[in-house]
């Protein structure tokens, strides 16, 4: 007991490198201001002020990030806040990715041109199906709390990819998840589906984070610390019980794989992607995937590299299951949002291949990060297009309604075709380069059979992308089919950003690949 008292008296204030963590501080600080504005501003001013604040925050945080990244800093990165946050090259790359993807998502979230008043409900407390609900469906206001919620989720994601100990990681996981649960339930149309998606995501997400936390506790029992580097040191040479280590690892990874929507932990993905408002789905599909895989990469590389021969077989199997589930179940889908959800499960399998290809020079890590960036932009643009095809009761997401879309709107159909080809991994798109670098890293790490399975899975998945393309170009449009809305500036910018990055990274990937490969995780 004396030991505990002695320790308690020695606690010193940690050193904080404000310059390094400025991007996260800016985002979280702006989220707090945004909550205050929500309380203080009159209703009609909120949308504009919140939007400007969110965009300025994202630009400012990106600026702070560029300032820090170009300044004199240690090449291997630094650990600040008593070692809780590691700011190294992968952290900076993932932060930049998250900020730019969030910029696109915020533009989609703020759009009010496609649906009058925006896709979010005017008052979430009104019961669906009542007279008030029908009245609010045509009102122009929207629940502007979505902006602070998005910023909090983004702040959580940025902390998550940089967290250097498991406790920080758990808190960041909750900070990113809780706002997303709420965002899922705020759709203006089809509110029953939206609320159902929120309940499902919440219950399963809480279940998965309990597993993650139990893993943290067991690893704490094993290593006596939750720092990733201490766990690696404890696992390197020790006579401690392996049961704690591998039970802890297993539970921890279940929590992480759930967030990343890797099959067989994907059960929530199609339902939540379909039920959530489309801009939120875009945000989740792009940014949550980046955050979750950023966390997986860091945990596997920093804490568990020494023991990789014990666990690699398990994740090998998980990657196969994920690719097969995504590709095969994607074939049977009739809803375009569910189809993209299953495609994201298949992509999570490909990303997991890159994550377990732990070659010494860190090629697996840089390849996976490139893939995340490329996939994020493609997905945001794809969901942006999905939000444009509408009929009288909202988005027309059933695939039969997309028949002959090219005759109604050649531009929209053309861009969507390009994005689907990128998801399928056709050359001249970023999807091809992403798959290429991930698979070559995997072959280098001796995972050739897995790459063969992945190629077969991508071929199967290509079928359902092509089916949509054929449907859009070679079918006759139904007379009562959906119309394609003319997007306003925000949605146009978001879609253009996504499509242009997809094309540019397909033609000149070198710059981003070099940047992703500049350094490895701080250990």
């Amino acid at each position, binding site marked *: 007991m004396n030991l505990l008292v002695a320790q308690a008296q020695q606690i010193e204030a940690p050193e904080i490198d404000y310059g390094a963590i400025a991007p996260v501080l800016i985002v979280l600080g702006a989220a707090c201001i945004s909550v205050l504005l929500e309380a203080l501003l009159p209703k009609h001013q909120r949308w504009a002020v919140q939007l400007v604040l969110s965009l300025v925050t994202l630009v400012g945080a990106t600026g702070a990030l560029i300032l820090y990244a170009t300044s004199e800093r240690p090449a291997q990165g630094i650990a600040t806040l008593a070692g809780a946050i590691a700011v190294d090259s992968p952290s900076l790359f993932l932060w930049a990715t998250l900020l730019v993807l969030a910029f696109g998502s915020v533009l989609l979230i703020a759009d009010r041109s496609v649906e009058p008043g925006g896709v979010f409900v005017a008052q979430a407390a009104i019961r669906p199906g009542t007279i008030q609900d029908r009245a609010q469906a045509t009102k122009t206001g929207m629940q502007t709390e979505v902006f602070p919620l998005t910023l909090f989720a983004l702040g959580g994601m940025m902390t998550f990819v940089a967290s250097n100990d498991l406790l920080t990681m758990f*808190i960041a996981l909750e900070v990113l998840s809780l706002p997303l649960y709420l965002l899922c339930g705020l759709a203006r149309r089809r*509110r029953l589906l939206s609320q159902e998606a929120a309940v499902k995501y919440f219950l399963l997400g809480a279940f998965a984070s309990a597993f993650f936390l139990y893993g943290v506790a067991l690893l704490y029992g094993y290593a006596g610390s939750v720092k990733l580097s201490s766990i690696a040191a404890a696992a390197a040479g020790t006579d401690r019980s392996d049961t704690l280590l591998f039970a802890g690892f297993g539970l921890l990874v279940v929590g992480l794989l759930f967030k990343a929507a890797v099959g067989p932990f994907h059960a929530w993905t199609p339902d939540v992607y379909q039920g959530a408002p489309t801009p939120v789905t875009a945000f989740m599909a792009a940014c949550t995937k980046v955050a979750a895989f950023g966390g997986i990469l860091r945990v596997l590389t920093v804490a568990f590299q020494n023991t990789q021969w014990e666990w690699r077989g398990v994740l090998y199997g998980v990657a196969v299951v994920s690719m097969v589930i995504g590709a095969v179940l994607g074939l049977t889908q009739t809803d375009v949002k569910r189809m993209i959800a299953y495609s994201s499960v298949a992509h999570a399998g490909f990303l997991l291949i890159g994550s377990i290809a732990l070659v010494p020079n860190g090629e697996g890590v840089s390849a996976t990060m490139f893939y995340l960036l490329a996939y994020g932009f493609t997905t945001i643009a794809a969901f942006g297009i999905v939000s444009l095809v509408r009929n009288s009761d909202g988005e027309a997401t059933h695939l039969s309604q997309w028949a002959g879309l090219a005759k109604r709107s050649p531009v929209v159909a053309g861009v969507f075709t390009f994005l689907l080809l990128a998801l399928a991994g056709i050359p001249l798109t970023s999807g091809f380069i992403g798959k290429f670098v991930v698979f070559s890293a995997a072959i280098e790490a001796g995972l050739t059979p897995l790459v063969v399975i992945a190629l077969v899975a991508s071929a199967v998945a290509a079928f359902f992308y092509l089916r949509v393309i054929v449907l859009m170009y070679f079918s006759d449009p139904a007379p009562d089919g959906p119309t394609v809305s003319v997007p306003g500036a925000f949605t146009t910018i978001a879609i253009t950003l996504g499509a242009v990055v997809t094309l540019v990274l397909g033609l000149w990937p070198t710059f981003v690949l070099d940047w992703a490969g500049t350094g490895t995780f701080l250990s």
Partner: protein
Amino acid sequence: MTPTYYLLLSALLFSIGAVGVLVRRNAIVVFMCVELMLNAVNLSLVTFARINGSLDGQVMAFFVMVVAAAEVVVGLAIIMSIFRTRRSASVDDSNLLKY
């Protein structure tokens, strides 16, 4: 009394919670089972803190409590909203999204 018994108790509570999440129908009860899982983890954390002779585990238990409280706020709001719509908190009734 060795601390190991507390670890076993915590594993037992965690399993009861996990089974509860899988078999119970009412969303509130499912959520209570998740809370049971989190508190089982707290028991593990303080036991490991005792075994390792460090304070970290006890401090982590506080963090977990705060997170659990935040989760209650968000979770009950979501469950309430769906209960008001459907007059039922059964997770079996939420079945519009499938296949």
